[in-house]
């Protein structure tokens, strides 16, 4: 029920934005709708590969090893391991999300997977070096990486404290 309402609200937002664009100019609306549709179609196969793949990867991974290292009972040590794994995960979005989803399906704890995903988002090393340093002053990039170091722990511990998801 709640997810139905969220879907509905999202599409109301799409309609409102589309209308705002159309009021400004028809071309703006057409461009926006076309780009949104094209992105959706182009992203579908990539995400499908990752989502289906993560299920099979999870089935192959040694479950007891996952549970011991980053399972729900692994606590702060598990969060630390997950954070390190997030930092060294190479590649683009499909890799990060597939590995995270495979870990969750394969017995990883939610706080640990949240820590992984947060670390990967904030300071995956290959992304820092390939993207960010090229486009921002290096001093700011490294400062950002350093102040981000504790954030996956805060997110993981926060999830542990509220006991969700």
């Amino acid at each position: 029920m709640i997810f139905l309402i969220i879907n509905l609200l999202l599409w109301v937002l799409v309609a409102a934005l589309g209308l705002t664009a159309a009021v400004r100019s028809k071309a703006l609306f057409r461009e926006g709708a076309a780009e949104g549709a094209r992105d959706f179609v182009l992203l579908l196969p990539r995400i499908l590969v990752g989502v289906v793949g993560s299920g099979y990867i999870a089935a192959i991974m040694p479950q007891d090893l996952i549970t011991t290292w980053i399972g729900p009972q692994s606590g702060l040590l598990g969060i630390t391991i997950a954070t390190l794994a997030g930092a060294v995960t190479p590649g683009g979005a499909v890799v990060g999300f597939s590995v995270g989803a495979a870990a969750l399906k394969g017995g990883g704890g939610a706080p640990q997977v949240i820590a992984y995903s947060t670390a990967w988002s904030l300071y995956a090393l290959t992304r820092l070096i390939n993207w960010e340093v090229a486009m921002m002053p290096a001093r700011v990039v490294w400062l950002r990486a350093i102040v981000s170091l504790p954030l996956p722990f805060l997110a993981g511990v926060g999830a542990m404290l509220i006991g969700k998801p």
Partner: protein
Amino acid sequence: MAQRRRVSSFEWSTAVIGGISLICGTTVYLRDGSARFAAILANDLGLFGSMLPKMAAGCLVSAFVTRLLPREVVARLVGTESGMLGLLVASLMGAALPGGPLTIYPVAGAFLLLGADAGTAIAFVTAWNLLGYNRALIWEMPFFGSDFVFWRILVAIPLPFVAGALARWALSFIAARRGKAP
């Protein structure tokens, strides 16, 4: 437009994950039988299918917001704010502005040129990474499901402020140390 190449149709990461998945899927089929193979497929396809409306909405919202909220406006808005309000505005804009790294990092760089401090730029990039609806709707939900993503984002809400404030504190600490040096 600069954002034209936001989504490319071929990507190495996908190819690598696809190859690994193929090996793992074959192994599951041979080791555990076709029933287990089909059960995993049905489970993942079910989640993927149920998230399609959200993904489509996410793509359209991103495309319209990109056009209605020009990057120059965001840069001016955030670049001229300071203090705690600056961190708040930067976090909100980071969560609201769609697009990939090619869009986001130049905007953050523009803040710095417009006179914002590094803390503001860092809060912006952190919010984009952790709170962006674009990534949550299109990428995270089909992989993890709505419930997981909801709680992940909830615990992440304070983090852009934390990062921005830590950065400011670190910079003022360094400046104070330098000031004291003979």
